[in-house]
């Protein structure tokens, strides 16, 4: 079992490293200063380890609320330390809610037009 976890972690680390590399590349381009490979690797490793902390916190918050599924509210709590971050996450959360509502409206719209056509026939 531990071998599986090790393999999974290696694959996940690689995936994180890839995205971190791309983000650093973009920021390097914006500021005309390249990131050394060592720096990118260090940022990727730190991000990976930070996920452990985030995950444990999320799990604890969900359990505290007597839930087994981590929700958006738990994520908002994880972002509590920085006001700017809290606001940013709050806004993103509202965006997601808007998207969900937007999708619902579209489906209702389609149904209405089909009904109108049927009544014409």
């Amino acid at each position: 079992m531990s071998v599986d976890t090790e393999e999974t972690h290696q694959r996940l680390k690689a995936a994180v490293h890839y995205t971190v590399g791309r983000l650093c590349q973009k920021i390097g381009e914006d500021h005309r200063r390249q990131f050394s490979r060592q720096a990118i690797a260090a940022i990727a490793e730190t991000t990976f380890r930070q996920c452990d902390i985030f995950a444990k916190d999320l799990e604890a918050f969900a359990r505290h609320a007597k839930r087994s599924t981590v929700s958006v509210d738990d994520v908002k709590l994880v972002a509590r330390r920085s006001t700017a971050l809290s606001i940013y996450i709050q806004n993103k959360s509202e965006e997601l809610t808007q998207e969900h509502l937007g999708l619902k409206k579209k489906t209702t719209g389609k149904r209405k037009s089909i009904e109108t056509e049927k009544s014409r026939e």
Partner: protein
Amino acid sequence: MAERDVEVSFKKDTVSKLLSSFFKEDKTKLSGDATLLMAEMLKVFVQEAAVRSQKQAESEDCDQVEIEHFEKILPQLLLDF
């Protein structure tokens, strides 16, 4: 023909597997929206790390961002998150 930059972000699937692998209990799951928000959080984390490291390199008049620059800003980064 100007192309818009493709937004770089963490894949929902990666974030989901990543966080799930660290949960202590098997029954703990992650909602879809929570996963998307965590992907945003991680992106912000990486961007903060990168921008702060970049500023550190700038303040030291260095051409490249080295691991030493990242190490200097790391303590404050972790405290802020």
